[in-house]
């Protein structure tokens, strides 16, 4: 992995999330961002004067606005401060946290504010995404972000009925979590007895990917404040420590033939590498919560295996036995996950923010009903990109033995 050294520990000291919804006509972009920034500052008990650097991010071109960080200064508070803009697709929110972690850990800045946002109702996501495709080989063939590749794969391995049932169970679990989270964009109140009906009757999008499986387009923003250990302890009574993070991507592999799933590799590679260098031997035992970037129920179901380095049908059984529910063995997305709200530039940051809230114990109605000490949060983006975080309640981590 080359030379890699964390000079000092980095703590999450402030978190702000707007309400997520399909439309935010009441605020423009800087105003919406300001809501999250104000919340994060209040949460940390800080003012803008305490912030040394602002990192801002969203999807490229999704709002058809150029250099949004410049004119968002009204809401971000970046006036006269060092600032960066990052845009790494779906992982943007995760990259923002990774950047803030690096900026503070390096000693460059003591306190960094990171902001992810999106107002997807204002833009034309397919227009933006199409720009990503190779102009010579792919742009004229581009079909947008939807795919049923995960469904094809899971069905091929476990059979149609079991696979479809497990995917819909995953979906209903996420909705039950979403109903607990007051910030959710979509919380339907799905019941278990609707499972059969949804499997048959939810409008199909592509193959076995149905409308109910898929994440939405949302408006919303997330802001987080990071500070170096010494300051973090002064600012916050319960800072959440970023133990480690990793970024893995291999976009070029999109052109490989059908039925090759490089995303499996980036998630698994990220998890394997992260666990190995942190001495985590049994992630399923070690972690108390996992906030996963799950763009659809099919992907969410499939990726559990990659992230926890499971084999066979272990991941399917975790879902079937409802062990990923908020009161299960390994709660996944007590926030409701990406299917509940997807303001893309913020989405991956919300995973980290929600995991951190669980560690603090103040997530609200969707707080896991038992102590949370070790958390994991993932980001996913196009084409095949993983950012993975390990969060800790205490600074005394040593290996990964569950205590």
């Amino acid at each position, binding site marked *: 992995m080359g030379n890699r050294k964390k000079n000092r520990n980095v703590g999450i000291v402030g978190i702000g999330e707007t309400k997520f919804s399909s439309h935010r006509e009441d605020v423009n972009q800087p105003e919406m961002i300001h809501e999250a920034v104000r919340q994060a500052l209040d949460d940390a008990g800080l003012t803008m004067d305490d912030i040394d650097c602002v990192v801002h991010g969203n999807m490229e071109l999704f709002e058809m606005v150029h250099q949004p960080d410049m004119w968002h200064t*009204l809401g971000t508070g970046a006036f006269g401060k060092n600032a960066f803009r990052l845009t790494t697709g779906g992982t943007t929110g995760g990259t923002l946290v990774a950047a803030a972690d690096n900026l503070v850990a390096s000693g460059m800045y003591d306190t960094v504010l990171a902001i992810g946002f999106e107002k997807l109702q*204002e833009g034309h996501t397919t227009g933006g995404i199409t720009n990503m495709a190779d102009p010579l080989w792919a742009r004229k063939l581009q079909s947008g972000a939807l795919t049923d590749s995960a469904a094809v794969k899971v069905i091929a391995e476990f059979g149609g009925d079991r696979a479809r049932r497990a995917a819909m169970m995953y979906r209903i679990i996420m909705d039950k979590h979403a109903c607990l989270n007051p910030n959710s964009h979509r919380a339907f109140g799905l019941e278990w007895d609707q499972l059969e009906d949804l499997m048959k009757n939810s409008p199909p999008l592509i193959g076995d990917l149905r409308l109910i499986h898929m994440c939405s387009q949302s408006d919303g923003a997330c802001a987080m404040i990071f500070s170096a250990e010494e300051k973090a302890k002064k600012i916050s009574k319960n800072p959440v420590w970023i133990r480690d993070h990793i970024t893995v991507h291999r976009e070029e592999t999109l052109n490989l033939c059908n039925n090759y799933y490089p995303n499996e590799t980036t998630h698994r590679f990220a998890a394997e590498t992260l666990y190995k260098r942190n001495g985590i031997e049994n992630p399923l035992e070690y972690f108390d919560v996992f906030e996963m970037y799950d763009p659809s129920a099919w992907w969410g179901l499939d990726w559990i295996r990659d992230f926890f380095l499971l084999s066979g049908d272990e991941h399917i059984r975790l879902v079937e036995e409802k062990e990923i529910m908020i009161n299960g063995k390994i709660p996944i997305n007590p926030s409701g996950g990406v299917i509940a709200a997807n303001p893309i530039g913020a989405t991956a940051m919300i995973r980290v923010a929600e995991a951190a809230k669980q560690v603090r114990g103040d997530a609200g109605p969707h707080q896991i009903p038992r102590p949370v000490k070790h958390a994991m949060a993932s980001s996913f983006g196009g084409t095949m990109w993983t950012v993975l975080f390990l969060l800790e309640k205490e600074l005394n981590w040593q290996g990964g033995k569950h205590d």
Partner: protein
Amino acid sequence: MTTAKDNCFTVEGKLALPYQYFAGSTGSRFLISLRDEKKIKGLECKKCKKVFVPPRSTCEVCFEDISQNWVEVKNSGVVTGFTIVRYEEPHQPVKPPYILGLIKLDGADTPITHIIKGVPLTKMKTGLKVQAVFAKNTTATILDIDHFKPMAEKPKMEMGYTYDELEIGMSASFTKTISETDVYLFAGISGDFNPMHLNEEFAKRTPFGTRIAHGALPQSLIAPVLGMKLPGLGTVALEITVRFKAPTYFGDTITAVGEVVEKLEKRRWVRMALRWTNQKDELVAEGTALVMPPVPLPE
């Protein structure tokens, strides 16, 4: 290395960039005021006292929420910067060339960008006072202000020299060739059909040997001098005396000259010396005038 371009394709492409933008409640309130009241409103930061137009809900410097501090600003302001747009694009609001200006409205601290019309491109300059012209058909966009135009200057009443501006020695003249038509028209105006002026056979037998103009005709040429030149517009003639020295024949070119010779401080009147000469520099008449120069008009 070769840079030969044979058999190298260029892929031409075009992508549409459709979008919408949520103005938010702050931006919308500004637009509603424009649309329904034709009023331009801004938001004031209570901390730094800046008034932002267009409005913004946060002061970026003080980082204060200012979204409720609405103030009305004037529809007029001053141009703080401008450019002349000469290239043409399909999405432009008007056809180039046109002036795009930064206008700091009276009562605002930040300038607003808009189109300026009614100024020759070569005469455009910063510092120009302009006022908003509202659109006839509202669209609830910033184009509810159709454009800005130069502030209408109050038409200034032209006026001659006032008493204080007049100096002794200032003079002015008027010259005109007296034709037969002038004489006949003057006969009609005055009712003076003396055959000296109108009957050539009669006139042949007089000492002048031909028809001559009425004396008052060349004399009247002093009127445009006094009333339009010196003192000029607004002058009231109080007294004119004249002594005729030589006749004016048809076709003579008469020059009437007035010169300031005395300023009567007490009444603020002016005495002028008058002279009429012809094309041969012969003295046709001389005299004096007492005039009341124009006084500044009340607003």
